[in-house]
């Protein structure tokens, strides 16, 4: 019986914790996600800068990152208002 009680209290606490977390995060979720997306977009630009004719001293390293960015690439060029990949040597869709 006592075990049951402790368990239910624990459950109640974790539920309350979830709600408090929601209450803290819900109003600002979109603002923060948008700020994060803006930073990611900037990073995307840096990684592909050499291909766009902007010299990048770190291009040796950023080249390695390109495959990792592939998944987000499609979203990125669409968000930037370009229907297809803007890069000649980097096709997307």
């Amino acid at each position, binding site marked *: 019986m006592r075990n049951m009680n402790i368990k239910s209290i624990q459950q109640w606490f974790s539920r*309350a*914790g979830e*709600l*408090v*977390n*929601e*209450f*803290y995060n*819900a*109003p*600002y*979720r*979109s*603002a*923060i*996600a*948008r*700020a994060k997306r803006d930073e990611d977009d900037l990073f995307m630009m840096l990684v592909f800068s050499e291909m766009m004719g902007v010299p990048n001293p770190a291009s040796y390293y950023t080249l390695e990152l390109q495959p990792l960015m592939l998944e987000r690439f499609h979203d990125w060029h669409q968000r930037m208002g370009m229907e297809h990949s803007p890069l000649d040597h980097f096709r997307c869709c």
Partner: protein
Amino acid sequence: MNAIFVMLLGLAAMFLGYVFYSKFIAEKIYKLDPNFKTPAHEFEDGVDFVPTNKYVLWGHHFTSVAGAAPIIGPAIAVIWGWVPAFLWVIFGTIFFAGVHDAGAIWASNRNKAKSMGNLTGDVVSKRAQTLFMIVIFLVLLMVNAVFATAISGLLVKFPSSVIPVWGAIFVALIIGQIIFRKWMGLGAISVLGVVALYLLIWAGPSAPLALPETIGGLTDNATWVLILFGYAAIASLLPVWMLLQPRDYINGLQLFIGLILLYAAVLLLGPDMTAPAFNTNLPEDTPSMLPLLFVTIACGAISGFHGLVASGTTSKQLDKETDLRFVGYFGAIGEGSLSLATIIAACAGFATLADWEAVYSSFGQGGVAAFVEGGANIISQGVGLDNEIAETLLTVMAVLFAGTTMDTGLRLQRYIFQEWGNIYNISWMQKALPATLLAVISCVALAFGAGSDGSGGLAIWPLFGTTNQLLAGLTLMVITVMLVRLGRPMYVTLLPLIFLLIMTVFALFIQLKGFYMQENWFLFGLDIVVLVAAVWIALEATSALSNLKKEQKS
């Protein structure tokens, strides 16, 4: 009359309004459908569109709409006696605000969670949308000037609150860092944050801080206004997680604690309403109650600002359509109960009628300060808290609310300037810093333009209320047009709309005369702008409805 009776009567009436009237609205007028796929599900993206638990959604809808305005308005309006203010808050909440707030969520929910501005363009006309944007800009402009003035007044009158008010900002900054870096769970940090805030409040009275009466020719009030705008400009440029988010959170907790404390103290003490039910001994400069009462109390009875929150963020997070009855209508009731608490504090918190009349010696006097003094008297006698600490507590509560609204308001205004920069291709205006400076300059100009010592803010309070009501009128117009298109009864929104328009236009004319007599040409001009907007809204509404009638006949 005993304040307990007033409190129970008000709360019971609003509760009955929720149980019966909102049920009628939800089932017969808006015809809420639990199976309707809400935008939160249809466009779920984890960013803007997130289905949210209805109690959580209510919590943040309520805390975003409840600010300093439902305190300032009623605290000024009780000058006509407590009965008119009480009746307008209760009936306004039941028949105006609840219908309006829930309706705004409903309208947005049924239109892909579009914001009220865009909806106006789609549902009514492009012209009406332009008008909507103008009214929003005016509301934001005035809200910052008004709140800066209200805060500076409080800081001057209650120097014990200066350290807790500014200390609270540091508490929020620290909390923001701790949460952002995940050093501690939110539960523990909430407790610590509230304890830190209350320690500051407790320490405040032993270290009061007052500015010298004049600094370089500026009064202490004016200096505070400038400091506040400097602060708000910086705060609005910081990332939201750093200051705004933790401060909002602490304010939310503080709001619930403050409300409970105030109501509990009234119950324990049972003070008498010392203020007159109808004030027959009005100070000379008091304008006529009809129509000014209906614009002095905007938030707390009906406020257009709620429509912006309802359609901007709340509608994107609605899990089930039926939830909006609780979120929207009960959110309005939460706000009404805050105004009710204000009325009781400002009317029952003074020992004798003479004391009360001394505070309300002229129109615009009293105000928040009366809420703080009266509320502190009730709390100190009811719960046994030291009077000065209670005063500091309520001041901090009001100031933090107003401060958060200023921060948000300035941020929104900056976005508007940046958008204008975009539209008209002015590159420097698209940057955050110059756009913020423009926003600050226009607000400071308003705060000082209306009164040379920076006291202009409160002179424009009724004008701010009027503009806010116009915004509500626009939202009601959108809902009414939607209802007519669906072939449902329109009187539940049309009657409030007509009432609001008549009262606001009437109030604008009376204020126009007042500004003319005072030769305050700045406010005179502003009044005319708002008046044009009001008449325009009335014309838009008439033409939209008569067009619909013609369409339906043919």
